[in-house]
């Protein structure tokens, strides 16, 4: 297809503003999907997306409309998946910015709009859900123009629910998004924006072609490692994969090349014809910057290799988490993984368990710290076990994030109180029209990442939204809070926290352990300590009684099965110093903070 007949755009918005639903309408209207096979939020094809009702992965789909080829990418709105958005932007020339008419501009509306503008995309603002009785389109227009400085003349008014304005959207995409540039006759240059592993076909590489073409039989190379491959199939998403003869400059699609190993494909890499040495790589993606880390270990140590394979496969399809091997005294060999947020962490864990068939033990999440040692060396500390002896620490630094909270002006007081309570500091306050204020403040990441969002939501009666970016590492009075079970420190349970909150944190953790570690054949002492000083203690009394009185004569099998079941329950536990610790215990360190998952 000639370039001037192609349009590539993505839909971006705050969570739940209706991106996937509008995408549904577009697919139906253009006939890309037949009514017969249609279901709501069709592009949310992953089981976890459907269960949670949110988009997690960006997905591309090709539509034809009035002689034009339109490639649409639906993106997630949740801040934890913003890496998906930033990659999708690289595959497009335009972005449709949706704003829920009743909610108005929210934090990810702002964040995603800026991402699109920075990426040089043609941004088309649109007010969605206009059929709602609570719709306030004029207010939204004001927020977009004064707050975001967007040109709102001819703003689209649509409803993904009723289908209102869908033709206008298509028309606007054709008229207001520029066609892709590029040279179909030049040597091929294509950007890998995503990938997935298929058991039969190996790695499926998702690409945006910038110059030249990709077709079956062609020999290509990955510029980052110069490995060469012969293309076995090219195709597009409709939204199922569909073979085509050629993918040419300006188009989005996929190819398969008998890639059975995972190490060659890297999201952000450029594909060029084999042997070509003069190809300039397409600018790739910034590396994701994980904010929270946790250890992921196989529940039984012989599953380590399976876990590694599973993580590698998943990483192909989610380049936004990081992983590297680590070992723990308590848990053996596993991986330290980094995530963009707690929801992201939970999703990765779920995808691993579901699709990899390995039981995993996950440690409580923490953030990364920095330590300046007495020899002047600056070290990254990804987990408490890496901390040097306190005598060798000159300065202990924690990560600080700059948080922007958008909320009604009357909620700013309570939010400020919360921020101060969480060791945060005020930076500035701006107005985004009469009903919206932006409060900017700096917060320790460790205070923000766990339950701050929930607390902020309740402080603003649900109206507040937030976005954040990493600011850097700053000195703080931090300590390593050691957790001892039966007098042995369990490295996987220990945490780093602020000295002031250590006693409270210690008690919380011990109580959580008390609830999750089952009574055993002996009493178990639980202690929290800073250095050698015990600051909290609890205990788990010994199991008093566990004996089946009657064992009906001949039915030995049943008795044995009951005992086997009892034993089975222990499989997911780890022996630490003779104490069996169930996997929930490692997470329970989060205690009530784990409510974050009920976020939506």
């Amino acid at each position, binding site marked *: 297809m000639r370039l001037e007949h192609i349009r590539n755009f993505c839909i971006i918005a705050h969570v739940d503003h209706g991106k996937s639903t509008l995408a549904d309408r577009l697919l139906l209207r253009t006939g890309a999907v037949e009514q017969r096979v249609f279901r709501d939020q069709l592009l949310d094809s992953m089981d976890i997306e459907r269960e949670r009702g949110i988009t997690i992965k960006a997905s591309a789909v090709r539509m034809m409309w009035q002689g034009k080829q339109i490639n649409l990418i639906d993106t997630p709105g949740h801040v934890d998946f913003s890496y998906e958005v930033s990659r999708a932007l690289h595959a497009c020339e335009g972005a449709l910015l949706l704003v829920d008419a009743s909610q108005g501009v929210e934090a990810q509306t702002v964040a995603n709009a800026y991402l699109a503008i920075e990426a040089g995309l043609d941004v088309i603002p649109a007010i969605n859900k206009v059929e709602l009785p609570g719709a306030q389109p004029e207010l939204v227009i004001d927020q977009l123009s004064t707050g975001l400085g967007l040109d709102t003349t001819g703003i689209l008014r649509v409803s993904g629910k009723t289908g209102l304005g869908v033709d206008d959207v298509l028309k606007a995409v054709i008229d207001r998004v520029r066609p892709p540039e590029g040279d179909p006759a030049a040597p091929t240059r294509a950007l890998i924006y995503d990938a997935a592993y298929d058991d039969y076909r190996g790695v499926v590489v998702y690409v945006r072609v910038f110059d030249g073409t990709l077709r079956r039989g062609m020999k290509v190379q990955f510029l980052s490692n110069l490995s060469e491959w012969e293309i076995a199939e090219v195709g597009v998403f409709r939204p199922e994969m569909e073979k085509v003869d050629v993918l040419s400059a300006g188009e989005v699609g996929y190819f398969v090349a008998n890639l059975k190993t995972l190490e060659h494909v890297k999201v952000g890499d450029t594909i060029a014809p084999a042997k070509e040495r003069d190809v300039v790589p397409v600018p790739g993606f910034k590396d994701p910057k994980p904010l929270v880390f946790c250890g992921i270990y196989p529940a039984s140590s012989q599953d380590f290799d399976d876990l590694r394979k599973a993580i590698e496969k998943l990483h192909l399809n989610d380049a936004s988490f990081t992983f590297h091997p680590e070992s723990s005294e308590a848990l053996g060999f596993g991986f330290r993984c980094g995530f963009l947020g707690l929801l992201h962490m939970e999703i990765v864990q779920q995808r691993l368990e579901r699709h990899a068939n390995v039981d995993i033990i996950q440690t409580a999440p923490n953030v990364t710290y920095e330590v300046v040692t007495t020899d002047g060396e600056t070290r990254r500390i990804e987990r408490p076990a890496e901390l040097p002896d306190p005598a060798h620490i000159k300065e202990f630094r924690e990560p600080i994030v700059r948080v922007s909270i958008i909320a009604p002006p009357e909620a700013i007081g309570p939010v400020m109180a919360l921020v101060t309570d969480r060791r945060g500091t005020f930076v500035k306050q701006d107005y985004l029209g009469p009903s919206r204020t932006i409060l900017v403040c700096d917060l320790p990441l460790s205070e923000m990442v766990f339950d701050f969002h929930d607390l902020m939501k309740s402080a603003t009666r649900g109206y507040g939204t937030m976005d954040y970016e990493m600011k850097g590492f700053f000195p703080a009075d931090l300590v390593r809070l050691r957790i001892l079970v039966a007098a042995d420190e369990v490295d996987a349970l220990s945490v780093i926290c602020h000295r002031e909150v250590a006693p409270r944190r210690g008690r919380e953790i011990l109580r959580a352990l008390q609830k999750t570690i089952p009574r055993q054949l002996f009493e178990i002492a639980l202690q929290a300590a800073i250095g050698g000083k015990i600051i909290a203690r609890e205990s788990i009394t010994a199991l*008093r009684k566990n004996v*089946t*009185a*009657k*064992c*009906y004569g001949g039915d030995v099998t049943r008795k044995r099965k009951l005992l086997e079941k009892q034993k089975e329950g222990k499989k997911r536990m780890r022996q630490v110093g003779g104490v069996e610790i169930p996997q929930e215990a490692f997470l329970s360190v989060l205690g009530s903070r784990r409510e974050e998952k009920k976020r939506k």
Partner: protein
Amino acid sequence: MTGPSLYVHIPFCETKCPYCDFNSFAVLGRDVDGYLDALRREMDARGVPGDPPTIFIGGGTPTVVTPEQLARYLGDITARLRPDPAREFTVEANPGSLTREKVAVLKEHGVNRVSLGAQSLVDRHLATLGRVHRAAEVEEAYRMVREAGIPRVNLDFIYGVPGMTLAEWAATLETAISWRPDHLSCYALIFEPGTEFHARRSAGRLNPIAEDRELAMFRYTERRLRRAGILRYEISNFARRGEECRHNLVYWRNGEYAGFGAGAFSYLQGRRTGNERHLGRYAEAVRGRGDAIATEERLEGEAAARETIVLGLRTSEGVDVEAVERRYGVDLGGLRGTIGRMRGLGLVAPDGPLRLARRGWRVADEVAAAFL
């Protein structure tokens, strides 16, 4: 070890007790004779071991049937055996169901041990347990058996009954001891899935006693009976020296037995089978193919060895691990760590055969599971 022991199941009771998950049914309106026909057919078809070291007739309540029916099935059994007065021959009986006439039938057929389902000697607890007999009848039945000259009598008791106090349980034990029985089985009440008790507890209509109180009863039982010269030889079984139930020991030692009747289990040549529990299906299966096997399991090598250890751990004699290794031709060196840990915790005896130490009994399942 000699040949397999013999078990025969009589699945009838006067009424069904609300805590009981045995294969038993209220006798009223049941075709007992039809069942006894099927039982005989099964014995014919499968063949009864001719010289079993022990016989145990259990149920249900084997004595709930008429004296004629009792004589009939006992005759059916003994007719197939080489007579041996020294062989342990136990029949279970419930106090309410026993008459002089029935005791005479037992005696005539060579029964030399009666196990009486007393359950409690406090009427209130008997009522809670849904038992049809009363405390006074227990003593009557006990005397009847003694007077008939049946040499060995066991009394079955249940403690930990909702509402039971330690003092009440202690008083029950005192009375029982004063009768000078040679064997007592004292079981803690279990809320078995599928029973009425289980459902009532789930619905909050029946409150189990506190764990600590039950534990106190468990400990008290052993201490008190030991003083009376009645020693624990299995978690819930106590006997004067030499009066242990040899049939039970066959089970704990993972020995062989052939079981007949609905829901009966057999363990022969490494194969454990369970009969059809349902009376109609049992009779039908026997009529059709001679046996009524519904479940089957064969454990070999290490699995069988481990099971033998788990069973043996229920007894005070314990298990000789090396003998188990020889018996199954396996190496159980892998258990050494577990044994060491249990010894360190003082839960199994520091030396000699693998057996529970004093502190180990109350957590016997926890210890046993570690060996599976």
